[in-house]
């Protein structure tokens, strides 16, 4: 009984880690330019496929090189998307940005579908996957453990980057008051490009981990993108800690629903609970209430 519960928690942690890697991108982009970047789920998908292609093109590529390389490539694509599609609309009404993001997302899905086909694939085994037996009969594979550990360390690195470096400070300043930051002589374009680069790189790592554990297909970004977006909102969108908390919470609810109720009810119960949570805390767990300007 206890063993299965721990087992489920580990499953939830693995799924939560993937959600968190995507949700961080959502929350960072939202924090800086107030855009719900609907293309972000598809950047996650793209990251998974870039990893898949890297392994396919360069046969002996070690995973320690594949993940950073895929993250780098995806980061470049993320920056490119911001430059081409979003920058011109930065001061436009928010909804036209949102709809542009939707368009970019649909474009990416179809591009990948046309290039590599619609079928689901798995990224060939890269991480060591020996089975570890813990006390009480709890079983965990090494890759699951590695996914959780690498994701957590990425999140720690991000936290240090945002809170302790100059660039990170500038990012927080942009999130706080974009206009004032520009008056201080900060290069806004550089900061926003950095945000997109970091967010896309994290999403790429999530895509690779997801492709190792489950499978990747051109449309997976829609579903996981929405889930991660919801996780970010639950945590309080704009907050990095909140995105991580929200992701693990959502993954926990989902895994428990599948384990103890029915996998068919997964989405319904997860969203139901999260809506209730939002009604109790309308700004998310870590979110601050927006001031009403009179």
């Amino acid at each position, binding site marked *: 009984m206890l063993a299965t519960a721990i087992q489920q928690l580990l499953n939830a942690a693995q799924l939560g880690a993937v959600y968190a890697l995507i949700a961080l991108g959502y929350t960072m982009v939202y924090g800086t330019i107030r855009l719900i970047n609907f293309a972000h789920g598809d950047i996650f998908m793209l990251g998974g496929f870039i990893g898949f292609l890297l392994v396919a093109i360069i046969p002996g590529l070690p995973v320690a090189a594949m993940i950073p390389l895929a993250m780098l490539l995806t980061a470049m694509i993320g920056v490119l998307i911001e430059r081409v*599609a979003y920058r011109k609309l930065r001061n436009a009404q928010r*909804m036209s940005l949102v*709809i542009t993001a939707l368009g970019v997302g*649909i*474009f990416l899905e*179809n*591009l990948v579908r046309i290039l590599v086909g619609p079928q689901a694939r798995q990224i060939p085994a890269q991480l060591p996957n020996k089975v570890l037996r813990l006390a009480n009969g709890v079983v965990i594979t090494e890759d699951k453990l590695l996914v959780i550990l690498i994701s957590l360390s990425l999140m720690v690195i991000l936290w240090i980057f945002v809170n302790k470096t100059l660039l990170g400070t500038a990012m927080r300043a942009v999130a706080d008051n974009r206009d004032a930051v520009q008056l201080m002589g900060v290069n806004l374009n550089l900061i926003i490009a950095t945000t997109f680069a970091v967010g896309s790189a994290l999403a790429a790592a999530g895509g690779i981990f997801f492709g190792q554990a489950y499978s990747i297909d051109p449309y997976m970004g829609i579903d996981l993108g929405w889930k991660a977006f919801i996780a970010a909102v639950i945590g309080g969108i704009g907050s990095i800690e909140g995105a991580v908390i929200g992701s693990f919470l959502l993954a926990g609810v989902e895994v428990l629903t599948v384990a103890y109720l029915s996998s068919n009810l997964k989405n*319904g119960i997860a969203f139901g609970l999260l809506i209730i949570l939002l*009604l109790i805390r*309308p700004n998310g767990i870590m979110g601050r209430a927006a001031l009403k300007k009179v």
Partner: protein
Amino acid sequence: MAEHQGKTPLNFRNVAIATFIVAALVQFLGSVGLFNNYYLHILTVIGINIILVASLNLVNGYLGEFALGHAGFMAVGAYVAALIALKLHLPVLLRIPVSLAGGALAAGVIGYLVGRVTFKTVGDYLAIITLGFNMIIVNAIQNIDYLGGPRGLTAIPKGTDLATVALCTVLSYWILRNLVDSVYGRMWLCIRENAIAGELIGIDVNRVKNLAFTVAATFAGLAGGLYAGYQQFITPKSFDYLKTTDILVMLYLGGMGSLSGSILGVVAYTLLMELLRNILGLIAPQLADLRMLLSPLILVFIMLTRQYGLMGNREWRWLMPDRKQTGGEGA
């Protein structure tokens, strides 16, 4: 605002009557094989989509909130209408209006309840709750065997054709534009521009917001009922967030806060997609896939060049109520 034009034949009443007559004629020609059924299908889909997009425009355009769950209300309407048509064995003349009204009413009631709960939150949180509601509805239907579960409902009796759809579209449009032009419409605009100012001049913000939401849900339900009666089969998958995305794309393409824009958006997007399919298919069949690549690019291009959509906050004068009659007391 009031442009006093002379008596022109191009006013809403004439256009509405003409639309209905043409639709009925086309439907008749189609049923005797004199009109291409493919075109008939496209016209019907356009009609249903106009109801969906124009009604969502109340919330997203005029009220300025960001609701993401329109397909959920469409699902409620479609399933209720389909159940009425399937289970109550009414004569045809009664069945169509009763099932459509039932679907619209059910969606309206659900919309009212959802609105009561959700309008405590604003902005992106409202988006997430409406989206979550959409997912819950689809998920619930998938788990109810009586509704066919994931397989959906089949063999729904034929309820609607182009003429019915045209009639419903014209009526919906008429109601929506009168609402937008009414004192409630002004309140929605006021809330969109400055909710606090609205509160200070005594608008019951939550109630007025919820009215827009309920009306939008009702018409989404009507569109769902029309869809169910036209397609004769429905599955929960047809109403998930992909459908909502489709509706949003047409809405924003046409323009926020513009009912004429909604018509334009639906027509332009639908025709564009079909044209691309045909033209690319003509060059080479395998190119037809590229349509899915080109259409989002076109959307992005339009957004980059016309960020308020094709008709943002502007209307075709002749589709709006005649100022000469209402101008005295209305404004």
